[in-house]
């Protein structure tokens, strides 16, 4: 039995009276895609924010590769191999697509304090950034201003930046949103291969993608995990149908 890459125990967080994480237990094992689904406002993004260190939980622990990272800042968790993609794109809009990917590569290389040598002349950095862009299908648009990308392309760039990090685990917040049918299929195919490089904690509303990809699914409602298990079990779960899947039908 291999130990989980990410292990979350009793995670609790409230905003005033609103409990957004209610004793959440969750793990991410090597090689798997673990999907977290749930209705709008269920607390999925706030869960990710706590996992990645953007938000401090009120209680509970977060372990990354066996080490307790609950008190570590975002930066340190990233260096330990945690890669996050944002639901609302967090990209430098004034910069080019390549520059955004280079930022990730720079983070992975960990030597950003060079003040004089042009970043574009660093071949290793460029190669890493371009390879990531290529994998999400954005290489031809490398020179474009990020602000000029379509919504779907920005989602792809988000994933590309995470790819440059070559992380130990991915934490992705709705990477399919706004991709359209064809883009969604490509992204699904990409994530499918990605799980062998690093496991993915996947928050996603696109149920086709979730059921096609996930090895395990956890259902979050009002900050609580109400069900967790393989896709078939979740599909059959009455509580889930009630609380969540019922809404969609």
């Amino acid at each position, binding site marked *: 039995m291999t130990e989980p890459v990410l292990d979350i125990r009793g995670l609790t967080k409230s905003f005033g009276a609103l409990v957004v994480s209610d004793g959440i237990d969750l793990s991410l094992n090597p090689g798997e895609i673990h999907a977290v689904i749930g209705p709008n406002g269920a607390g999925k993004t706030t869960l990710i924010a706590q996992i990645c260190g*953007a938000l401090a939980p009120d209680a509970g622990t977060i372990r990354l590769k066996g080490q307790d990272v609950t008190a570590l800042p975002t930066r340190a968790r990233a260096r330990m191999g945690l890669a996050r993609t944002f639901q609302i794109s967090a*990209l*430098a809009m004034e910069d080019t697509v390549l520059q955004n990917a280079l930022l990730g590569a*720079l*983070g992975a290389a960990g030597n950003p304090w060079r003040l004089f040598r042009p970043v574009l002349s660093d071949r290793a950095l460029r190669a890493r950034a371009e390879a990531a862009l290529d994998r999400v299908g954005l290489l031809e648009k490398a020179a474009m201003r990020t602000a000029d990308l379509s919504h779907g392309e920005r989602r792809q760039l988000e994933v590309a930046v995470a790819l440059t990090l070559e992380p130990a685990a991915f934490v992705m917040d709705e990477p399919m949103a706004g991709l359209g049918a064809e883009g969604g299929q490509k992204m699904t195919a990409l994530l499918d291969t990605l799980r062998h490089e690093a496991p993915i904690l996947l928050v996603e509303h696109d149920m086709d993608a979730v059921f096609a990809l996930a090895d395990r699914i956890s259902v979050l409602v009002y900050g609580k995990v109400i069900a967790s298990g393989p896709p078939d079990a979740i599909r059959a779960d009455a509580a889930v149908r009630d609380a969540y899947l019922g809404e969609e039908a």
Partner: protein
Amino acid sequence: MVNAALVAALVGVPLWAHVAGEPFTITLATRAVIFALAAVGLNLALGLGGLVSLGHAVFFGIGGYAMGILAFHAQNYLPMFPETLAIEGTKSMPVIWLVAVIASALAALVIGLLSLRTAGVYFIMITLAFGQMFYYFTISWSAYGGEDGLSIWVRNGFPGLNTLDPIQFYGLCFTLLCGALWLSHRIARSPFGLMLNAARQVPHRVETVGLDGQRAKLVVFVISGAITGLAGALFADLNRFVSPTMFSWHMSGEIMIFVILGGVARLFGPVAGAVLFVAMEHVLGDLSDYWHIYLGALLLGIVLFARGGVVGLLAGRAKSHD
């Protein structure tokens, strides 16, 4: 295009003035070039780092007082810290510059460490307040002239040059400006510049890839302060005079105006802005005692209607960081 014209003017006009025997024009050009240098410093923090510092007069003033104090001790043959260290003053520009750069960098480090604990409006107010602190401190510091400031009798020297000759001093200042421009150009394109650029736009992204955006801002603030400090030392040498007004918040505001008039985050923006400011000051100042009204109106117009500044207007909506 605009940049080339600007450089041509900065080289051509003083040379013409030299040949035509118009030293006053050279002095005006020197003033513009020094202001430009101060603004190039601020533009690094403001344009690249997004740090709206309303206290850059601190560094300008520290540079000025570095020159003033060192030259004051040298001209009066009074050693500094007579009981302990007994350091002689100096009249040598390179030494003065070095002291100015180090002192203003240190001040920027301390101010930056404190004010970068906050962001947004707090940052603006705090940098402004620290500027005021230095202003009142120099006023109360009677050993170096207090409110009246310090006069230096003869311009400081540079090995191999006659700095009393306006065109030679201009050449020195212009060279330093070119150096600072080259430096900002390199920084903007470096890995550090990339990180800073992103930290300005999406700070949480930078953290998420494992980089320290706050520290990047601190570093650029220090570099920025050091460059503005160097400009302060030159300005003091141009006037052979330093006073607390170098620390005044109007000075901070003006340095920022140079950047904005020209165009934020454009390499040559601060240069264009400083040249325009000095030209307006000279031409409008002759026409009216109240020329700041026109400056205010122009500034208001640029903020409300022409975000790219003058360079932006002339160069069209071309990409910045030219």
